[in-house]
């Protein structure tokens, strides 16, 4: 199943400057694994050696943080949008 993945500026050098790419998979971790097929190196930027999303990376499925869902195992379906967003400071 194809979903839309929004790519943040710091990673666009790996996607030919595309802000949006499409990827196949049934879960967040499958999507992340498959992203590297077309965009070499992308996976390693997003997850650590154990396949866990890195500390300073936030992943959202249709605007919901996957940590509120089932984390990397969260199921995705056709038409979903996944956003990858670096952590941002604000407030105090």
């Amino acid at each position, binding site marked *: 199943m194809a979903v839309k993945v929004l790519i943040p500026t710091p990673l666009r050098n790996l996607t030919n400057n595309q802000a949006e790419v499409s990827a196949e998979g049934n879960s967040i971790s499958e999507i992340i694994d498959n992203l590297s097929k077309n965009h070499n190196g992308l996976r390693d930027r997003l997850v650590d050696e154990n396949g866990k999303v890195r500390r*300073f990376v936030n992943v959202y499925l249709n605007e919901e943080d996957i940590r509120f869902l089932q984390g990397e195992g969260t199921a995705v379906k056709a038409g979903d949008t996944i956003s990858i967003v670096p952590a941002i400071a604000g407030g105090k």
Partner: protein
Amino acid sequence: MSYVKALKCRECGQEYEKVAKYVCEFCFGPLEAAYDYDKIKKDISREKIAARPLNIWRYRELLPVEGTNYNTLEEGYTPLIKADRLGKELGLKNLYVKNDCANPTHSFKDRVVAVASTRALELGFDTLSCASTGNLANAVAAYGARGGMKRYVFIPSNLEKGKVIASLIYDPKLIGVNGNYDDVNRLCSEIAGKYKWAFVNINMRPYYAEGSKTLGFETAEQLGWKAPDQVVVPMASGSLLTKIWKGTQEFIKVGLIADKKMRMFGAQATGCSPITTAYKAKTDTFRPVKPNTIAKSLAIGNPADGYYALKTINESNGGAEMASDEEIVEGIKLLARTEGIFAETAGGVTVACLKKLAESGALDPDAVTVAYITGTGLKTQEAVADHLNQVQVIQPNLEAFEATQLTAVS
């Protein structure tokens, strides 16, 4: 002339040019300004600083801008008040309150926005923007106006009216987003990727965040060039706590003050306490939360600097506490009643947590203690309006007055 050598990744050490960039392309770690401390040590002195105007730019060597054409409203050098009455109530013998309500837009955000907007102008940006819980919106709207810039300000749509008006007056494009701060933040990071604007807390973050160090600098200078023993700081993203620590360490590093083991204590609202919760659970893994607290300026459920704040708290042998909405209101009232300072809800969190930390014995009652009040209560009047004594209305004659007072006394 700048003493900043480069932007450097806090995680992997990769260096970048001093542009509007905030995240490491290799590991996604946050970028931070890296200074030439040896050179600063040679060039800086107490006398030099003391001779300069009373604003944050007196510490210019340790701020990440190139020139001296500051975009300023004379922010900083706010009062550090010896708080004996509050201290007596809490059993703290050497308590000080750093009153950052006394800034141009009435919160500590003027420090960070002065630095970010100055750097944004140096880099040639014509638009200043931010995702904000309110205080930052006010500061960006004001400093953007001061710098002759266009302003796009994004806030959660449910923000306190006082904070909305205090932004609108400067005539920015103010966009209320249906969602909480974390939603606003996510949207803004997508907007920042597309538009060439200076988002003070996104692509300008390495410069912006450095402004908070000035709270640490001033505290040390105002205490007679000495770091305090222990401090209590409100936490949302956790950035402020880490920067007060960093500023104090820099003062030690460049020889302005003696080395000291300062203990860092963080304060959060119970309805949004991912950092305090992680501290109490002795873990460094954060679980983001959906905020539910009257302290909206601290309502960040996904704390970007939480990891570093926690590390600083632990390494400094400090601690963390949290306060309920009721305790926050009591904290605001306590500070106002004892010291004459009207703090916003975040200040209520600080005072309530200060009280808890004093009561539990986590704070040393004899040590020099500083509590940071970061914004004014005039912006969040809704929070306390229903918890105050009412006005006594009388006829304009002496009998009526005395009758009311006798009733009140009896």
